């Protein structure tokens, strides 16, 4: 079974799909709620200390904003250990979203740099695209499973 990084990392739908196909999703266990009462859209239920942005220096230089480095301290290690990735571009806020556009650019770049199986999809705009969207993810996960089984 593969460790799959999902983007947006907050998408419970993607996380669920990956789990149902027997793989391990690498994500943050944060649901985007209908009502937002936290600092950001995907604020974690844990207190990040000023040490996290310093750990994030491994993936982003000191002139990069602290919020980016703080996020990278969480997602950087996951990107390093992932064996596959699913990237959904321009996802709706309700599907799952990550608050900082600069972090999003960096995460997607780092994933695309890795020599691993990747599925790079646009978020569906209508029902027909929705069906194809789910089918594409299912196919990708199935192929990953076959590949793992033949190892």
């Amino acid at each position, binding site marked *: 079974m593969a460790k799959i990084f999902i983007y947006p990392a907050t998408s419970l739908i993607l996380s669920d799909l990956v789990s149902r196909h027997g793989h391990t999703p690498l994500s943050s266990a944060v649901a*985007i*709620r*209908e*009502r*937002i*009462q*936290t*600092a*950001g*859209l995907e*604020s*974690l239920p844990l*207190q*990040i*200390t*000023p*040490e*996290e*942005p*310093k750990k994030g220096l491994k993936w982003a230089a000191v*002139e*990069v*904003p*602290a*919020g*980016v*480095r*703080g*996020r990278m301290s969480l997602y950087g290690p996951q990107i390093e250990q992932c064996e596959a990735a699913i990237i959904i571009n321009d996802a709706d*806020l*309700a599907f799952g*979203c*990550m*608050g*900082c*556009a*600069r972090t*999003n650019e960096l995460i997607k770049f780092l994933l695309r740099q890795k020599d691993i199986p990747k599925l790079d999809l646009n978020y569906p705009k209508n029902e027909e695209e929705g069906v194809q969207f789910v089918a594409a993810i299912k196919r990708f996960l199935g192929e990953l499973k076959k590949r793992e089984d033949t190892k």
Partner: protein
Amino acid sequence: MTPPVRIAQLSCGADYSGVQHEIDTAAHEVNGEIFFPDIALKDIRRDYDAFGLDVKSPDLKLAIARAKALVDGRVEADAVFIATCFRCAEAAIVRNELRRFIHENSKLPVVSYSFTERTTSGTLLTRMEALTTIARRRALLARETQQGITLGLDSGSATTKAIVMKDNKIIGTGWQPTTEVLTSAHGVIETALAEAGMTMKDIQAIGTTGYGRFLVGKDLNANLIQEELTVNSKGAVYLADRQHGPATVIDIGGMDNKAITVMDGIPGVFTMGGICAGASGRFLEMTAKRLGVDITELGPLSMKGFGGHVPMNSYCIVFGTQSLVNALAAGSTREDVAAAACHSVAEQVFEQQLQEVDIKEPVIMVGGTSLIEGLVHAMGELLQTKIVVPHHSQYIGAVGSALLASGFIKDE
């Protein structure tokens, strides 16, 4: 117990930078309560589109929607704190536009701040205190005349000042460099009282401000202990006789600078910078020392020179001083070097702080540095306006404290 002042936080990156706890702590210390305006996902889409600023970060879209909810009255707050990551250009644009939007469309006091992971609650404390003061003490800040006999004390980072006022007139002043905080405070009080021909028994109310305000305020059993942002702006419009309508107050201090837009004597938007000493009064002190003149002589000296003749490639206090030394070694006149130093400080405040507030005339400069003519001249040139420097401008915090403290005199 007084209910806490509810401060709405509009931010991007504060939680992931690890500074949310610092923001909460600073608010809590001044009996403020940070909250995140509760809005729905559908509000974000609608309000973000309506605002018209095309940004990519979802948390900035959230901040925009929250600002709209505050202005529309869908969420109630007493004050607004806008905070985004330092060095993020997209966030800087949003921060600036939201501050302007809230200021123009509501009466909510706003402060904006760009943080790094090194931001501490101590750094934020004066800003938070000013926010809660404006929200809680609007009636006191509306006071326009001083009554009775009051003492105002400003315990600043570089100098300590005291003022004795009686029936709306300054009758005693005291000034000395800050060394040991309480010793300096008692020294200036003694001088001010002697000049006024009074003793402490005659004083009906006391107000303190400045970095040492809590220590000195406790020692003197002061009626009013208040941060310098609201006190100085009140003192500035009082002394400049501009208590009605808009004004901008600039105070270049020994350790940090304040830029405050005021409406009818009450601050609306303010910034407080203290990151680089090259933009502070300290740099001018060092320049005066290097030129072998007293700080009081730097102003007249700089007015005789042309700053443009001296190459200044850095705003840093160390490298800036090095540039001045190099210029002197290359034959530049002391007058030109003095003018260049004044221009450097004015330009840095202009570029880094005055962009964060909307300049409204009259522009009033206060604090000890306002007595340095070259600095006032340079600021006037940059802002293309005639700067107002009121009498007793170096005592601004003490005057503001004495004025506001009179609101605490009990009827005999």
